[in-house]
């Protein structure tokens, strides 16, 4: 890939998301949630999506709205059930959506593995629980591990704080969460940001997601490139 495209339109950024795509969606609750990109995806119309995200939507906006629009076939997440997850709850109880519950750290590590070219890894999390039932296990140095496989995305939708014009990203506080990991794990990475700074405007020591991982940066006030 070459340096990221800078776009001003969320719609343009998600125009080519295909039906059936696996979409990694950043955020932990609302912190780091790419709400405008999700709204654009709803508008765009892609369906039969597999969504990988920590939660399964809150209230009636963002992911919840995508679910409500019946665009999602399956959710892979660690924590679907929340006080305000009524959209997901309703679909799930009606048998209209699939759910794969993954421990939060495995969700992160499986995406990291996808990005890092690791074929599978032996992980101690969840051993002896229903969430590793049927998985291959192995005792290594006296501890039991279950074999976990990578989770790869076709697309990642993430929210960062600032980008430079090459696509290097920095995040803000705990809104960083899944963004940097998802950026490594998807074929096409789309980041919405609050600001695009000129080349040289980010200190190379503090870049969190290097430009190599980023395909498109979206910022309504940015000059397109």
């Amino acid at each position, binding site marked *: 890939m070459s340096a990221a495209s800078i776009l001003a339109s969320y719609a343009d950024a998600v125009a080519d998301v295909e039906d059936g795509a696996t979409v990694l969606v950043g955020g932990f*609750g609302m912190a780091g949630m790419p709400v405008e990109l999700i709204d654009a995806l709803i508008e765009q119309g892609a369906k039969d999506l597999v969504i990988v995200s920590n939660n399964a939507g809150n209230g009636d906006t963002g992911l919840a709205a995508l679910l409500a629009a019946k665009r999602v076939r399956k959710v892979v997440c660690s924590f*679907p059930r929340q006080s305000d997850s009524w959209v997901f709850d309703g679909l799930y109880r009606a048998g209209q959506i699939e759910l794969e519950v993954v421990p939060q750290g495995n969700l992160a590590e499986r995406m990291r593995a996808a990005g890092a070219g690791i074929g599978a890894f032996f992980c*101690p999390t969840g051993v002896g629980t229903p969430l590793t039932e049927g998985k291959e296990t192995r005792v290594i140095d006296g501890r039991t591990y279950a074999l976990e496989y990578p989770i790869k995305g076709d697309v990642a939708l993430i929210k960062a704080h600032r980008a430079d014009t090459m696509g290097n990203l920095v995040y803000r506080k705990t809104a960083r969460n899944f963004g940097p990991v998802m950026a490594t794990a998807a074929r096409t990475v789309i980041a919405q940001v609050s600001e695009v700074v000129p080349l040289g405007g980010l200190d190379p020591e503090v870049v969190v997601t290097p430009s190599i991982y980023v395909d498109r940066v979206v910022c309504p006030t940015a000059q397109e490139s």
Partner: protein
Amino acid sequence: MSTPSTSSAPAEAGPRDKHALAAAIARDVPDGAYVNLGIGQPTLVAEHLREGSGVVLHTENGMLNFGPVATGDDVDLDLTNAGKIPVTELPGAAYFHHADSFAMMRGGHLDVCVLGAFQVSANGDLANWHTGAPDAIPAVGGAMDLAIGAEQVWVMMTLFAKDGTAKIVPTCTYPLTGLACVDRVYTDLGTFELAASRGRADGAVVVRDLSGISLEELGGRLDVPVVLG
């Protein structure tokens, strides 16, 4: 549960409320420890940590050394704890991404985590994520990662459920969160050492700080042997 003590064992006046329990846990956290406090009641422990204890709080959504809950102008929706509640940043804080945060947990770098529980077995199995009810929507979050990750896993809970059934059990009947991972259980009626008990041939749990219950009554209401420690 407020039966006056009839045993010779030391007992406080009555069961500990959640604040007394949080204070008891806070007293046991070593100075300078790196600690994760689970969502819900365990977060109360933070309010009871001694000023100057140097305890550093970890939140699995990617931060070390956060401070009290944010109020007013300090609320920043980009700065929340694992319960998605806005918190503050202390000097010496650090942010990192989710894979790094859970590597920290899974790699055994946290000294203590404090979790709630539905059930804990005498050998330290933990059930705290799923009641097993057929219509419940399963949601695990970071519970399984914390259960197997921290050096010391402490549970904070009432000893008996609302229907009176014991929550320290011979074998968990709820779906498990982790195997043989709990070291200590802090309850309203006493503190149980499981780590020590795992070495006991009789399978007993060791109780201390009995509060509002006698050893005899406790022994009668639990299905696991209890000894005073």
